């Protein structure tokens, strides 16, 4: 494990703490932002698929430790999300500053839907309720706004190389 991976994991842990202490207590229309969906996306855009899968898995496991949802569900979702974000690696030579926000918007929404679908299959909970739309909106929009600074943080944590989408 090299230094950049250690920094990335440390950054992921710090964002988990920030989500649990700050964003978890913030509410917009009864829903709170979920910064953690942004972590595998930012990691994928900056560091590629391989590292994003590992970071997504680790952050997802950390999130599952503090939720009542099935242990491993968030880790599975974040691994898939990190792989999907990392697949964009190398497809664009120069990325405009707003591209990270757009990917965060779409990726967070898709990640949430995947999470809800898998959770509905595994558990007997009814999760497809009208409030799901509000959750999708708040989480995706919040992550789109937070994406530029979070991606910058991941660029700092990851050693500068040419194999990332966002340089």
């Amino acid at each position, binding site marked *: 494990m090299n230094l950049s991976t250690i920094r990335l994991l440390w950054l992921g842990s710090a964002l988990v703490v920030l989500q649990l202490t700050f964003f978890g*207590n913030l509410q917009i229309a009864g829903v709170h932002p979920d910064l953690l969906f942004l972590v595998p996306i930012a990691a994928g855009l900056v560091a590629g698929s391989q590292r994003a899968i590992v970071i997504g898995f680790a952050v997802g496991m950390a999130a599952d430790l503090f939720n009542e949802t099935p242990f491993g569900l968030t880790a599975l979702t974040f691994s898939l999300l990190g792989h999907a974000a990392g697949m964009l690696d190398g497809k664009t030579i120069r990325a405009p500053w707003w591209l990270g926000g757009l990917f965060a918007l779409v990726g967070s929404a898709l990640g949430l839907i995947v999470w809800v679908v898998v959770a509905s299959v595994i558990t007997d909970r009814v999760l497809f309720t009208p409030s799901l739309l509000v959750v999708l909106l708040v989480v995706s929009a919040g992550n789109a706004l937070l994406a530029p600074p979070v991606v910058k943080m991941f660029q700092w944590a990851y050693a500068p190389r040419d194999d990332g989408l966002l340089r």
Partner: protein
Amino acid sequence: MAIARRASRPRFTLFVCALAAVTFITLDARDGTSGFIDTTKGVARDVYSPLQGAVDSALEPIRNAARGVRSQDQLEAENARLRQQLEDARGDALEAENNGRELRALYDLFNIRYLPDLPRVTARVIASTSSNFELTLAIDKGENDGIAVGMPVVTGSGLVGRVVETSQSRSTIAMITDPSSSIGVRVGSTGDIGVAKGTGPGQPMDVDLLDIILPVAVDEIMVTSGLQSGAYPAGIPVGSVRTTDTPPGQLTRNVTMNPVVDLNRLEFVQVLQWTSTP
């Protein structure tokens, strides 16, 4: 060849991580509440608790400022409304005290535990769930303080939820508005029995199985029914009726209610040291 190897490495990593995640999901489902995974969760929460408290204290001014900016007008209006309610409540309190004495005498006659007599543990809310699909709270008391899974949690206004997980120094409460929540309730005026279900954050609760014949008025208070094997003792206020209607052809009444407790602004709660008898 090198390119093909590089391309297959993330897929292999994804396969391994996905397999590990599915394994943990399966283990968690099989182990229940006393397995290795729940023990690990409890240890992680106990270890994390001091750090969360420190970060929480540091970020609280920012959170309060944000909340204050958003809800300034709302707070002023609520302040005025609460002052009026306090005046009205002072007169009701005297009447309630007398009624309470009579009720207590009846409970003693039938050997039923009276709600105010139940031992309780006061705890501070230290975090809400980080998931938008599990409406839970974390409190700063746990097994060391006499809290066990299944105990009801209340405030001075009414029911908050019940304890679903404990560690040595922390507990997790599932709130009544959680979609998986189901509570036996009784209409205050008629005694009709129904089931209240949570529908998610900020949404009114649905109340089912109420008799179509017995009337239910808006703003009427519903309390826990405490029926045999119920998860809650009888008499805890749960919510006030928001809407009531009877669609043609239905045998039961459609009722929605708002929780009596403001679940978005909880700071202190009380855990009733009571468990249901089978």
